[in-house]
């Protein structure tokens, strides 16, 4: 008995290591954010910076939707609705608070959030940043509350009904936001000062959208959020909650029989997913300086669903990769580059890995070769006939979605992460167990 307690005491983590375990993601996120803004942000032109930020926001959206649609196997079609809730929350907090505090709608942050021309001077952080971060967190919280309110009653429903209800929720959010009162314009600071605070959240700009906000979202904040989202959701996936999610997805009845409280876990997945959607919406709004509910209808939700489905239902890295590809693709398609160098490179890498592992997978090599050839021919045809392939990308996505469901219904990576698919080193040769030998 005594020995057991001693062993337990030895295994118990020290407070310092617990702290380290809890805080290293934040440190990593800050480091990557700083890297993105100081190294990458200063070396790319604004056009590419814009694409990078859109990629980051898309990653957060796709990965958060993976929690519901991938892990838990539910089908939410209202992700853009949660995004709208978050975006408008951040807009109200940042815009009206700036007006109340400083009497204008200008930027009051530090160098890390500076998005204007040239590089910023002065401190890295300002009080405007505090407002911005608070706005983002509150955006996530309100979106999570909305997720709870939608999820609690509707998650009792079967899959496709849930899809319709969430879609309906997104539309209701959109309609309500579009029916809100006019925004108080930036030059009417006295009007904001006179309006009691509880009336300000009603003035959301209606059909014109919420405009002329100060912008705070930079590569730093976006990639801080991306890294935190990825780490939190990965930890969630390998936690007991994550295993409960996956068990619900595989078989509801069986997981209920194993003692999983189905509704509780479904709601939990929904709330978490909505939180990150709200944060993404806040980042989106505070990047563009404007947000309009008309853009956040079910078409936007469909875009996110396509990312999740293509990436793999339940794969975090798959969803993130799909989000990046689908965000960059329209830009690439505008002037398609040669495909063969990439195809050849991929072929070489794959051949190398397979030769090293002595585990040949010929069909995969043939698929890559054929796909490269076809893409190259397609590029030539497009260039010869002066067709802009970007015009056809939506048709392409739709076809991809249909073909994917028929040929590879689990998406690119299925429930696996990319690092589970590529194993380094040779497969271990185990000697066959002899008769009578204990395994």
């Amino acid at each position, binding site marked *: 008995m005594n020995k057991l307690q001693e062993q337990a005491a030895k295994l118990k983590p020290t407070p310092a290591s617990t702290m380290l375990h809890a805080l290293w993601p934040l440190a990593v996120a800050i480091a990557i954010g700083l890297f993105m803004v100081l190294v990458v942000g200063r070396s790319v032109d604004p056009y590419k910076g814009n694409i990078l930020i859109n990629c980051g926001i898309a990653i957060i959206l796709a990965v958060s939707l993976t929690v519901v649609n991938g892990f838990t*196997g539910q*089908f939410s079609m209202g992700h853009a609705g949660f995004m709208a809730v978050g975006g408008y929350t951040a807009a109200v907090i940042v815009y009206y608070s700036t007006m109340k505090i400083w009497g204008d709608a200008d930027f009051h942050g530090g160098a890390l959030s500076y998005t204007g021309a040239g590089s910023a001077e002065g401190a890295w952080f300002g009080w405007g940043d505090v407002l911005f971060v608070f706005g983002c967190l509150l955006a996530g919280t309100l979106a999570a509350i909305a997720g709870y309110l939608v999820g609690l*009653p*509707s998650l009792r*429903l079967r*899959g*496709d*009904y849930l*899809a*319709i*209800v969430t*879609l*309906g*929720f997104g*539309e*209701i959010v*959109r*309609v*309500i936001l*579009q*029916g809100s009162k006019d925004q108080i314009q930036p030059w009417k600071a006295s009007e904001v000062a006179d309006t009691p605070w509880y009336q300000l959240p009603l003035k959301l700009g209606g*059909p014109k959208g919420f405009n002329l906000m100060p912008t705070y979202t930079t590569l730093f904040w976006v990639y801080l959020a991306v890294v935190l989202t990825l780490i939190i959701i990965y930890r969630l996936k390998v936690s007991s909650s994550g295993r409960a999610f996956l068990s619900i997805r595989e078989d509801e009845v069986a997981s209920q029989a194993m003692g999983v409280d189905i509704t509780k876990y479904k709601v939990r997945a929904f709330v978490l997913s909505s939180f990150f959607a709200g944060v993404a919406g806040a980042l989106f709004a505070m990047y563009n300086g404007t947000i309009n509910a*008309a853009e956040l*209808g*079910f*078409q936007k939700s*469909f875009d996110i*669903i396509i990312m999740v*489905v293509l990436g793999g239902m339940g794969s975090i890295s798959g969803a993130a990769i799909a989000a990046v590809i689908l965000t960059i693709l329209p830009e690439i398609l505008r002037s398609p580059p040669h495909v063969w160098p990439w195809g050849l490179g991929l072929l070489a890498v794959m051949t190398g890995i397979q030769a090293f592992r002595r585990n040949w997978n010929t069909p995969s090599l043939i698929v890559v070769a054929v796909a490269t050839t076809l893409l190259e021919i397609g590029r030539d045809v497009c260039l010869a*006939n002066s*067709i802009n392939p970007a*015009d*056809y990308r*939506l*048709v392409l*996505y*739709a*076809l*991809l*979605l*249909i073909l994917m*469901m*028929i040929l590879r*219904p689990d998406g690119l990576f299925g429930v696996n992460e990319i690092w589970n698919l590529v194993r380094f080193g040779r497969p271990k040769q185990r000697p066959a167990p002899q008769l009578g030998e204990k395994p």
Partner: protein
Amino acid sequence: MSQPLLSHLLVLAQQTAPASGSAVTTLLQTLVDGFTVGSLYALIALGYTMVYGILKFINFAHSDIFALGVHMTIVIAGWFGVAGASSAGVPAWYVGLGVLVLSMATCGLVGFIIERLAYKPLRDAPRLNVLITAIGVSLFLENVGQLKPIGSIGIPFGPYPSPTPTLVANTTLFTLSGVDIHLIEVTVVGTALLLMLGLQFLIFRTKLGSAMRAVSFNHRTAALMGINVNRVISITFVIGSMLAAAAGFLYALKYSGQAKQTADAMWIMLGLKAFVAAVVGGIGNVRGAVIGGLLIGLIEFFGVQYLSSQYRDAYVFIILILVLLLRPEGIFGKAVAEKV
């Protein structure tokens, strides 16, 4: 909601609001409008409910078939020399009938092809996958519909809006306490009723209908009884698509002379409302779909008239959520046990 839809709603609201009249006139006008649009919802809802009854999934592409119906009406009427509201005079009645039959045939064919290529390979797949495929098909139809013409190959309906033809004269048949009942409304409701009665006959009085009902209960058992399940499913899709096409035709009649665009969220919205109608009536139930469609049409128009036209789309979804929470099987879910 895109900008065209907003303006469309404004036009609708102006049409709905009587110029001058008593409360009775307003009430009657709302009833008439709600009933007319409701009968369109009912026609579309029938397609949803039939497919759901047999394959147990929401055919998201159905609303696009409906949009295709509107556009085929525009295109085919153009072949007959009727284009937009500007054309002189109203053509003879058989032109309208010809347009209806041809657009139903086209959409039926499209429905058949969709089922064969996209849904048939997924017969044994999880329902979620089929749902995603349906979304894919819907996006595909939508985006193909708004492609620019490639070189000389024109696509019947491009990215530019085209006006719906005037196929029926807008004569006033009679006036009921200040409300004009037009030939158009009578045609719309009459045609819709005829088609619904025809479907009712098909499902409950013919051998094919028995086969459809059998397949909706259990594919395997139906197959053991000698029913060609794939054929029945194909026929169901064709019939549903034809009904959607008819709804599209009637929609074009009702809003004749208005410019319609393929790439518009309003098609999906209309389709979704029809789906809500099917759920409210009890999904899989043919009679429920009809009642649900009429109900949704009336609720929508009464909401617009008496509450606020701003929240037009919200009413329907609030009804949906209420029905799903209080009575998930729909209003007529178990009362009428026949399923298709």
